[in-house]
């Protein structure tokens, strides 16, 4: 879809037929064909978004430093919280508790739930602004990258720093944790993969991938990494386009059909799944740290 303006973030909603794009001014929702479905004017200057699949909540943070929760099934803005920490450029959701982790310019990570107007927890993670955050699937580890050229692994439950990885001369622009615990760090035009980075401190990286030098755009040195959910593949978005890299052993081979992860489901199965998801939709008040 050619929108003609900056798109800062994009996230799929409850299935592949709907996705939200944080464009220059507002957040738009498109369907699989590219038709614009909604324009959410209450979300302004959004930098990062995260979707909570079991609550049908879309969380957004932006330049104004407001964290807003939007219910995508009823269309209601559930809550908006003032982070009071300025523009926020990093957001991740803990899949096990549905708590949102936001990374701020003063090096802190704050944990949020829709029912509390103050952050549940504030962690001081880096000396300098955070660039990206990732929570692993089991909800145990939090990976943060900051302008101080380090990537730290934290234990989410005890809020203690477990490991630290140095990213070299430049700070990492993005990080992600795969289902099997592989850490991907995008530093400049190189993406480094550490296997099993959370449980033990890895001395050496598993893989390094250098991105092609783009001649089309002047911008270099920024890449965004995301692992593909049940595949041994990592997708990298960079200045010249999109690259996908095979990282053996990073993906979870066993998916569960009842969680909506079946890649071979038919259209009818997808529709039935959507109805079941809506029936099992959880209330935002139930989101808590424990």
């Amino acid at each position, binding site marked *: 879809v050619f929108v003609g303006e900056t798109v800062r973030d994009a996230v799929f909603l409850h299935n592949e037929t709907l996705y939200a794009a944080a464009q220059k001014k507002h957040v738009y929702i498109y369907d699989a064909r590219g038709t614009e479905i909604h324009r959410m004017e209450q979300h302004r200057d959004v930098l990062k978004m995260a979707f909570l699949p*079991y609550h049908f909540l879309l969380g957004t943070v932006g330049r104004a430093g407001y964290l807003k929760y939007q219910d995508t099934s009823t269309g209601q803005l559930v809550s908006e919280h003032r982070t009071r920490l300025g523009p926020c450029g990093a957001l991740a959701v803990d899949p096990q*508790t549905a708590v949102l982790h936001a990374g701020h310019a003063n090096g802190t990570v704050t944990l949020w739930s829709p029912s509390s107007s103050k952050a549940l927890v504030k962690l001081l993670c880096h000396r300098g602004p955070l660039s990206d955050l990732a929570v692993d699937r089991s*909800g145990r580890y939090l990976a943060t990258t900051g302008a101080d050229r380090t990537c730290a692994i934290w234990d989410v439950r005890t809020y203690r720093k477990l490991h630290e990885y140095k990213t070299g001369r430049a700070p990492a622009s993005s990080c992600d944790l795969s289902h099997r615990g592989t850490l991907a760090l995008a530093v400049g035009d190189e993406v480094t993969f550490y296997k099993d980075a959370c449980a033990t401190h890895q001395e050496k990286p598993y893989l390094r*991938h250098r991105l092609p030098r783009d001649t089309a755009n002047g911008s270099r040195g920024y890449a965004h990494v995301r692992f593909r959910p049940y595949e*041994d593949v990592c997708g990298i978005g960079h200045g010249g386009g999109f690259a996908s890299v*095979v990282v053996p052993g990073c993906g979870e081979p066993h998916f569960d059909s009842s969680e909506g992860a079946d*890649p071979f489901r038919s259209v009818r199965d997808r529709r039935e799944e959507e109805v079941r998801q809506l*029936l*099992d939709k959880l209330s935002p008040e139930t989101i808590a740290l424990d």
Partner: protein
Amino acid sequence: ISSSPLFVPRRTMKIKAIARAPPPSGGGRAPVPRIHRNLDPTAHPLSRAREYQRAVTAVKLDRMFAKPFVGAMEGHSDCVSSTAQSRRGLLPLVTGGYDGRIMVWDLAARKSVMRIGGGGAGGPDQAHAGPVTGVVVSPEKHGTIFYSCGDDKRIHRWKLGVTHSGGGAPVGGADGGCDPEETWTHSSPLKSMDHHWSRPEFATAGDGALEIWSPERSAPVQSHTPWGSAGEGVTCCRYNPSETSLVGHCSTDRGVGLTDTRAAGGVRKTVLAMRSNAFEWNPMEPMTFTVGNEDHNCYTFDVRRMDRPSMIHRGHVGAVLALGYGPTGKEFATGGYDKTVRIFGTRSPTARDCYHTRRMQRVFAVDYTADSKYVITGSDDHVVRIWRSRASEGEGQRSAREERSLEYRAALVKKFEDTPEVRRISKGRRLPKLVRKQTEIVHVQRKGAKRKMDNVVRHSGKDAQGRPVKKYEGDRKKAVVKEID
């Protein structure tokens, strides 16, 4: 493998990465869906919360589908006082009313197939010259015979024509009916009657005594007066399905007793605080019986231990007038003076469900159908009603998928039945204002009585062993005034 120019492989490497092949196409047939499971709990986040949400949805669906009323059958011109069904079959339902009429109904069609009394071609004007107080279908001749007794001191024997398996045609048709095959006359009005489960013998309860009759004799074969009191009558009598010589009865001296027809006198009697109106044996556990009492409670007794009831069933806010056990023996339905029908589990002190309608007045007769799916009620508004015993269970055959879904939902509700939201939805019922108000008052009264007892015990001082002087008295023990052996 990495495409970085820094890495140059020495020899070709085989990479093992996840590779998924799409499922084979069925070759024209619809593909069988393959379900993959990952039992790792991290693959199922928030599973407890989701399961709880499903339980709430399940209990809401249950209440949405709860439509217990099936149909009403009109035909009587006064209160319907008694119902009877064949003990061995599903079919005809016989009802007797205060108008002296007896009607036979086809439950499946919800229509009357035979009427005795009320005018029409041939037949008597009334089955009884006064209220019909008891009807019972005899087990002999495949259920084609039934007996009725009334306030006019008479017992009649009638021919049904329809067997309990549905064969045969009703005698006389829907109009008029027929003359009784045989008649017995007694000296005093009769309150209730019951037939032996196998022998040609029936019992009647009346003002003077419990009488045992044989169809061959015109006078009672045996006469049992409820001992321990003189001049008291028997109001309800029931033969035990298993110990077939045992007859249980309720008497006007507030007693609940057992009589053995082989013995000379009574076996046992327990006197309660108020009179009992209905007596029923548990068909599956025949050593227990339940009585419906005037003090709004039902008491379940075990014959081996009659010094206290084994369970007190509370719920009605008016006298319990009628009782009917389900054929599974797991639950029974009661009808009360408070115009409601309640269904209790045998081991449960509170009602599982409560049925009421604006049109239904005092309920005088309650019965279960033999497939345990429906409850029949006869009430003061001259109407015989059919209700579902399980309000959310629909009719007809269910598919396997539906069956599994219902089982899953029932299991979910059971798992979370103690959580406040699920409990509120599953137990909440819309009750008539009077019943609701009265229930609240009773609740306040019992709470107050308990608080008073707590205070009395606490401030009664201590005896030599350091225990309080005044002791709590169990509800069940308090219910019984005396026991006579």
